[in-house]
């Protein structure tokens, strides 16, 4: 069975997330900042009684900070639950072919976050590893 992909707009680019790693798509209500935390941690938000650590994907890709976003995909990782802010979630689709390796350099942030390219109905998307977005730039440098 072909992999299910969640297509979202992130930093102006349409990208694909493996749908299996995404728990939900939410509209964030309120954001509690976390002073002195890593730059890509936008803050905390509550999803029912759970605390979500909100990741600014824009900052994680080292493009600066995003503003005014409220849509996020919820990704559980290593015992914690994260919300990755995206510009827009478009659809969940089936990949037309297995992912293929990326052959060209994409630029610092994307190189780290994108694991492969994947084709959906004749269109190519970057397949993003949400865990890399969560880890952020610092973890990669270490």
């Amino acid at each position, binding site marked *: 069975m072909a992999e299910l992909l969640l297509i979202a707009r992130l930093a102006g680019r349409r990208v694909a997330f493996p749908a299996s790693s995404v728990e939900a798509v939410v509209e964030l209500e309120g954001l509690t900042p976390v002073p*002195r935390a890593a730059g*890509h*941690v936008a803050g*905390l938000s*509550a999803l029912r*009684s759970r*605390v979500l650590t909100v990741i600014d994907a824009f900052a994680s890709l080292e493009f600066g900070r995003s503003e005014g976003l409220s849509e996020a995909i919820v990704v559980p990782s290593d015992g914690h639950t994260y919300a990755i802010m995206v510009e827009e979630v478009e659809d969940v689709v089936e990949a037309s072919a297995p992912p293929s390796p990326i052959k060209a350099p994409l630029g610092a942030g994307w190189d780290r976050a994108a694991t492969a390219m994947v084709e959906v109905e004749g269109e190519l998307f970057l397949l993003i590893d949400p865990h890399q977005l969560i880890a952020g730039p610092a973890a990669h440098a270490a």
Partner: protein
Amino acid sequence: MEELINDFIAETRDMLQALSGAIVAWEAHPGDRERLDEIFRFVHTVKGNCGFFDLPRLAQLSHAAEGALAEVRAGTRTADTRLVNAVLAVIDRIGELIQALETGEALASEDDEQLIAALGTEIEVSVPALEPAAAPEIETRKSQRSIRLSVDLLDRMMSGVSDAVLARNELARRLRDAPRDVEVEAAFERVSACIAEIRDGITRTRMQRIDSLFAGLPRLVRDLAAELGKQVALEADGGDVELDREMIEMIRDPLTHIVRNAIDHGIESADERVASGKKPAGTLKVSARQAGNQILIEVADDGRGIDGDALARKARAAGLISAEQAEKMTAVQKTALVFMPSLSTAEEVTAISGRGVGMDVVRANIERIGGVVDIDSRSHQGVRLCIRVPLTLTIIPALTVSAGGQVFAIPRSAIDEILRVGGGSVRIDGVGEAEVATIRDRRVPLIGLADLLGVEPEAGREDQKLILLKPAGGDVYALAVDAVHDHEELVVKPAAPAVMAAGLYAGTTLADDGSPILLLDPSGMANCAGVSFDEKEIDALLAPAGEAEAVRETSLLLFRTLDGARRAVPVALVERIEDVPVETVQRSAGKLRVALGGRLLPLAGCDAAPAEGKLRILRLTDGVSELAYGFAEVVDIRAVALDVHAAPAPGEVGGVALIDGEHVEMLDPYWLFAAHADASPDDGARPVCALPEGDPWMENMLRPLIESLGYRVVAARDGVAADILIQSAGTEEPQGSAAQILRIRSQSEAAGDGSIYRYDRAALLSALTRNAKGQANG
């Protein structure tokens, strides 16, 4: 007991199941150390448990297997096929016995001996072929009254209930805003009560009797005592205290280590004990009790105690403390050195406790779960170790505060005191980049929470509140926040690594309105702010003595007398400074007095009123009576550490000190009041307590306590008459008549002179009230 046996059966069955993989792997690679260790741990655990339950067959089997495996681990024997088979046969037999135990059947025992013999080193023993264990013929399991649940599932239920609570709160808000409907409200109340009950129940499912922690101790004590040739009697108490399951697991290893230590290092051999006049058998008391939302676990032995001097010598030799520090340390501080890494009192490393984890690890482990370890050692009387841990890992009492418009929580266990900056009790000084708060003559580093977090404070320093924090293992510091809100019980969850990386937070929690709150980590904040505790680490191990050690500063009013001398008086004694017309000063009834606001005050500092103009006076008070002291001008108000050289004879000037390179005469207020003040008429009815002068602790801390008990406090000096006289242990008592003398010492260790430790409030109160009552009745 039944319940414990069921636990044991279930646990062993689980372990067997988990072990099956390891057994197969070990069979394939007998050299695999990891598998070997795993199997060794299993038989070791079984051995320990069944010693306690009196299951001799299981004990025999597991003991034999443990012995054989220990030889392999020690390298004196190789794991050949024969041994592997023999061990596996024993493990299978353990499984069968457990099964039999559960169903209540008897199992033939005739070939146990054979199995055990097979473990031996002799070759000529026939090993029963290892066959796949035949399926039990009859599945007559008793119906179970308990089931085992994973903590994950309980956590999920807990968070489900938390959701329900939040939803209920939301609904409650909506209902308040809506028009009243009695029926809806009644229904809501019912739902509300149900949710509370469910929450309570689920919280309790996480609790476990501490019995399960104590269960292994008798065996441990017995084995250790036998191994060391000592006699030890164990007394366990308070096993019905309930504690969070996870917490029990976290305490297990530290407790075991403490018990090992006590038996190995603390309790002497029978001969040694008899020689020092003790019973041949040592006593080890382990007790648990609940105090508020903390659990106290105490381990006390009646052994030789900790040799503080030996510890200090070792610490010196290891370069952990300087000779100077060692010199200055109190006995209690020396004892506390036992928590320093890489220090062990035993001259030689012993097999029991001289390796593996040290007391430093014990302390670190306890502190990691928000607990505290206290140690109290009495030479030749024993050691008492007290572990205090919060009831659960997940719900902690906290104080909510705000900085820069954002709410944060601080664990209440770390909070010493909350103060208002604007109040007179706090002074803030800038020292270079840093700030220092002076609180009642005590200086502590000040950290602004907003500065630390890099946000804009919403309140100026003067409007802020100070929270005195005492992080575990750290030194006290003050945290300035914009506002203090509320005490709350918060359900704390660990924060994501990216949040923890900031080093400031201990976790996250949800407010009643469902918004996330960050829980601040008191020691993390201190580290981030660069408040250095290193050189104070030793003092910090013992707070009260450490504070007493700090240089005491007295706030002094420096003034020039009418004849031009520089003198000083403690600011605390000065009620106000006033200019009075000379006409109000008159010699009457044998004393020079000044008329002030309809009262006559004795006047000191001058022999006669100046000829004309005004006289400037200090109005001094001892809390009861008042006197005036004439002077020329105020020089300064200074806080200084006093090094007073006493005057040869008592008089108006008690001594001289060097302040800014100038001689300053120190007024002796006690002499002044004794010589000049009028006895106040209505004081006869109250019992009188004489307090030594010049001791800030007595003055600031003890005096209010004594006064609150209805005593009139007078200065303890020669010739004083009092119902009770307070005296610092080790000082000479003044000549006077006192019905009772109460000696107070600053070390918590008993001095054997009948003195009371200064922070032993209960003992102080009882001594003081006994006397006050005696007065009232008599």
